[in-house]
């Protein structure tokens, strides 16, 4: 006698709300009683440059020839008021990352790589090191709320000054550098006890609001005899008003950093839930400058999740003058290198997902102050890798610009773009592909 077939069973089903990662977060919180801290930027899926496509030339546009015909990539930053504006050969710059968060060799490698292709690198919280000044042809000096290591000599050694109001990973948040990374040298530069968990202030100590900022910028210009371009860096949250206010306060350059922009150490809940995506902030920032008659007079740098030359080209097409990269630059140096997989596994992670930059145990020797680990990064080789990567970004952006018939990457424009999703169309203010419809702007299209 044959057995009756058992009832069919459904496979185990995970909740979309309580997915495995969320469950793990709850379990971790219940076990530790404190929130999670990590590095890098937002990891959740967000509308991004991948949701945009270039149309390329066709019947109504005339393309340029492949890699032969000239397609300019140079950019001048800071020619509004500064007597010594910055001239870059590529519109891809290196974002601010501190010595402290990064090792000395990593800062040196960033300087070497950026200098090799004629672009700038940027200090971070904690002041300017000899390594990065001597290896960075063009160095932007960040002026942060903490003012760690701030002094007029370094201010005058800088090629530009970036007043940091916020950061895309944490608009409204200050910085933290955990004790593992407060080495004797870092502590001395920041005037702090060695080994403590350090907070960087979330607001500037001596100015409040845009009217004060105008006076502060005036002071910085006076101290540096009006030579240096002054940037204002904003974490993307209200990009229209923030950009307008920064320009009104006298900025030469406005930097807008979206929520995919990285951090050395911030609460996970902050990174993933505060701020807006990079794609959502560019057109608003550009609109603010256009409304003030300052677009292309006050330059706009966009950062947060720039990975490829296509991303660069899309940011420029939407109206940016340049972009900045941070996380991608670290990856180019060797961060998350699969060669260190065994060590990543010992840290409970895997190559490609390592983000505990705050712990100072980076197998690649980049986000650490451990001298043994830091030695793993050869700054010369790292610099070569970064230079290669920056060259590829530039070549890729040129390739796309030529395909769109542009003899300079700055000639790319929103009309060259369409969006794959309604969200991206609304944020980038370009039509949904195959339609004339720009949500929130045009009426019902095709």
């Amino acid at each position, binding site marked *: 006698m044959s057995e009756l077939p058992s009832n069919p069973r459904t496979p185990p089903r995970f909740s979309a709300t309580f997915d495995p990662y969320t469950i793990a977060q709850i379990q971790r919180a219940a076990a530790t009683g404190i929130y999670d801290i990590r590095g890098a930027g937002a990891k959740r899926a967000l509308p991004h440059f991948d949701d945009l496509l270039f149309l390329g030339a066709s019947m109504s546009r005339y393309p340029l020839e492949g890699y032969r015909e000239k397609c300019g990539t140079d950019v001048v930053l800071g020619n509004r008021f500064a007597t010594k504006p910055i001239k870059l050969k590529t519109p891809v710059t290196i974002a601010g990352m501190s010595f402290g968060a990064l090792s000395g060799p990593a800062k040196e490698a960033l300087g070497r790589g950026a200098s090799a292709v004629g672009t700038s690198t940027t200090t971070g919280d904690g002041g300017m090191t000899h390594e990065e000044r001597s290896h960075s042809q063009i160095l932007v000096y960040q002026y942060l709320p903490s003012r760690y290591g701030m*002094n007029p000599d370094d201010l005058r050694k800088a090629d530009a000054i970036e007043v940091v109001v916020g950061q895309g990973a944490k608009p409204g948040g200050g910085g933290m550098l955990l004790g593992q990374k407060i080495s004797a040298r870092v502590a001395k530069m920041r*005037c702090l006890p060695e080994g403590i968990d350090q907070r960087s202030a979330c607001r500037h100590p*001596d100015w409040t609001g845009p009217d004060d900022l105008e*006076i502060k910028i005036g002071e910085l210009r006076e101290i540096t*005899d009006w030579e240096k371009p002054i940037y204002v860096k904003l974490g993307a949250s209200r990009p229209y008003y923030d950009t307008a206010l920064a320009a009104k306060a006298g900025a030469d350059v406005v930097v807008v950093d979206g929520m995919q922009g990285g951090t050395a150490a911030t609460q996970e809940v902050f990174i993933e839930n505060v701020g807006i995506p990079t794609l959502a902030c560019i057109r608003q920032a550009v609109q603010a400058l256009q409304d003030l008659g300052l677009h292309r007079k006050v330059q706009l740098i966009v950062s947060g999740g720039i990975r490829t030359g296509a991303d660069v080209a899309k940011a420029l097409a939407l109206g940016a003058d340049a972009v900045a990269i941070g996380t991608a630059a670290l990856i180019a140096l060797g961060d998350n290198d699969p060669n260190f997989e065994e060590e990543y596994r010992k840290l409970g992670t895997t190559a490609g997902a390592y983000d505990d930059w705050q712990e100072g145990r980076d197998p690649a020797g980049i986000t650490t102050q451990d001298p043994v680990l830091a030695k793993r990064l050869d700054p010369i080789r790292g610099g070569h890798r970064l230079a290669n990567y920056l060259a590829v970004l530039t070549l890729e952006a040129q390739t796309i610009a030529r395909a769109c018939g542009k003899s300079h990457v700055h000639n790319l424009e929103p009309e060259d773009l369409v969006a794959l999703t309604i969200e991206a169309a609304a944020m980038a203010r370009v039509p949904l592909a195959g339609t004339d419809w720009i949500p929130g702007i045009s009426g019902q299209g095709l």
Partner: protein
Amino acid sequence: MPVVDLSKSAIRDLNRLLHSLTATTNETSWTVQNPAGQHSIAVGVDAPIEIEIEGHVGYYCAGMNKHAEITINGNAGVGLAENMMSGVVRVKGDASQAAGATGQGGLLVIEGNASARCGISMKGIDIVVKGSIGSMSAFMAQAGSLVVLGDAGEALGDSIYEARLFVRGKVTSLGADCEEKTIGDEERTILAAVLERAGVDVPTDGFRLYGSARRLYHFHIDNAY
């Protein structure tokens, strides 16, 4: 003795002149007339000179000063002597918010009162206030001494690191992680030396000392408030 009249010259002209001075200049005594509350007067000076300012100044007067002795015969606006590196800045009247903010060295003397955030994020500067100071003073103060002959407002020394806060009068309240400390011989010597440099002749006995309880130095659940 160079005299710059700011009713006739621009701030830019004044600062350009001051920045052109070297350590060996023989133009060591300057007078600035008619400041009229303008901002950024004598900022970024890097020379061993004396500057006498005849009147009130606006924001950031003497900002990032190195080596100079700057005296303001009037009141000072926001951020007086911010991020000062060395030298002496003295204001005969009152100072607005954030006096001596992030100062890394030198001596700031305020003969009147100072408003909120006096000595915020101070990093080695010594500040002497003959009058009282406002709220949130010495917030995140890292190093140096803040000496107050009068009273201190709310939340004194919030999130303080290793700065020393000497107050002779009443303290409205202490900020997070700030506590009263015992004044030992070392601290009394430091206090006496700062008072002497400031030219303030008062006994050290009447002061109380405040500093970091160091409970926030390491990040754990108990300090996530």
